[in-house]
């Protein structure tokens, strides 16, 4: 079974920090007045494909636990994962920009310019392959990449050592992975578990799909029709999150061949990149793997007739002949994906050790190694029973 019951998750959610996207997602779902049946019936079959899922899928190899998600959140926000102790995952995957960085392409260790734009990690629980070119099979496999790479430039084996020196992490790992503790694999599992809990909040579009006719404007409704028909966007941007998780060449003119470098000799994979989610799209400019399109209007103009024709171009990309009014309707529709995702509170991170062992000995030689509990290692200075 790949899908975990919502209940499991909801139980764990309380322990996560408030204002956390996943909490809002689950709580809202739990109290939501609508159901899948209510929207799928009544001749509105075309709407059924857009209904939000009711649970987050977690893989069998790494099932959800609150402890893993809590630990993963701390790791995600902790710059000590990087070589400089200055860059965290959240530096680039910034919740304030819907988990991107607002830049055409990111900057890593010592301001090294990265080759591609930072993608959002929203709704990645539903993904198939990760990265723009799908070169990593899972979130677990992806998680250690940036730590060792240009993004964070940490000697990966040093990460385990560095985290082990932080008492709070020793405790958190022991609770999340009893009997296993701090390993690279467990760092990856915790990060991936946290990432899967990052789910878009309810957007006006969801309220409309659920039956609230006034949730979106008439222009946006016309835009939705264009999206599915004349503009053909839904050929690739399908499902509640607006992605088929697939790879397509949409005719951006740069030299990056994307998935073509990973899977060779497939014509249609030259210049092909992963279809991004459309959730919180206005929050995530500039657009595309190279950040080359600054606004949604530029994106629409690109699809209308601005694309590069070549053999690898997707068969779903054709001149659209949209009028200016139609372009405006399409834009109005895209903006209905702006959800009321709650503010994300940065977690309190485990403190560095205050009392290194050697110094401790000097401080209270009488202790002579006794009472070496985790509590005493940090609290010796103010707890009598440790001295």
């Amino acid at each position, binding site marked *: 079974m790949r899908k975990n019951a919502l209940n499991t998750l909801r139980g764990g959610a309380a322990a996560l920090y408030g204002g956390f996207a996943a909490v809002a997602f689950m709580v809202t779902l739990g109290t939501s007045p609508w159901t899948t049946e209510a929207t799928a019936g009544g001749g509105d079959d075309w709407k059924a494909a857009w209904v939000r899922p009711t649970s987050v899928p977690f893989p069998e190899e790494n099932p959800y636990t609150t402890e893993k998600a809590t630990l993963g959140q701390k790791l995600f926000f902790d710059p000590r994962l990087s070589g400089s102790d200055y860059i965290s995952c959240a530096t680039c995957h910034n919740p304030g920009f819907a988990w991107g960085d607002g830049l055409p392409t990111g900057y890593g260790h010592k301001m090294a310019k990265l080759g591609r734009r930072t993608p959002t990690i929203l709704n990645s629980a539903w993904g*198939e*392959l990760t990265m723009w070119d*799908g070169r990593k099979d899972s979130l677990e496999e992806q998680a250690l990449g940036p730590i060792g790479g240009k993004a964070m430039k940490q000697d990966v084996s040093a990460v385990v050592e560095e985290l082990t020196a932080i008492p709070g992490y020793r405790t958190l790992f022991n609770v999340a992975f009893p009997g296993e503790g701090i390993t690279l694999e467990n760092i990856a599992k915790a990060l991936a578990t946290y990432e899967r809990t990052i789910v878009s909040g309810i957007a006006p579009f969801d309220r409309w799909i659920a039956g609230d006719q006034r949730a979106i404007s008439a222009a946006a409704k016309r835009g939705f029709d264009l999206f599915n028909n004349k503009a053909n966007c839904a*050929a690739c941007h*399908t499902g509640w999150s607006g992605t*088929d*998780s*697939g*790879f*397509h060449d949409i005719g951006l003119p740069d030299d990056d061949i994307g998935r073509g470098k990973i*899977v060779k*000799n*497939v*014509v*249609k*994979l030259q210049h*092909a990149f992963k279809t991004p989610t459309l959730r919180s799209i206005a929050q995530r400019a500039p657009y595309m793997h190279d950040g080359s399109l600054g606004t949604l209007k530029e994106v629409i103009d690109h699809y209308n007739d601005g694309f590069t024709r070549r053999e690898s171009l*997707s*068969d*779903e990309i054709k001149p659209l002949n949209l009028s200016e009014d139609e372009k405006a309707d399409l834009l109005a529709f895209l903006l209905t994906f702006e959800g009321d995702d709650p503010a994300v509170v940065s977690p309190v991170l485990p403190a560095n050790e205050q009392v290194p062992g050697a110094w401790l000995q000097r401080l209270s030689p009488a202790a002579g190694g006794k009472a070496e509990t985790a509590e005493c290692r940090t609290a010796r200075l103010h707890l009598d029973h440790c001295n």
Partner: protein
Amino acid sequence: MKVLLVSIMLVLAFAANAIAAQTVVTQKGRKFSEKKIELNVGGSIKFVNDDDVTHNIHSTTKGHAFDVGAQKPGQTIVHTFGKAGKVKLRCAIHPKMKIKVTVK
């Protein structure tokens, strides 16, 4: 005349045979109709694109790699498996579409 008739019958018999040894896989709604298929060496799969988007079946399994190329809606493609082994197929465009083929 007689010779012609016999040869037509032969061709028909052959065609019927080929169809019998063939598994048909459809792709409507960006889903393969099968998840696992077992075949004998020389057996084939007929992929029907009854969907409304282009698909592209391929495999990167070592020793069995192939790419059938872009398959537009309405097109049919037959792929024959000439070697024993386990072959993983995906749609190159829609990686959620996958099949495991065991060739015996």
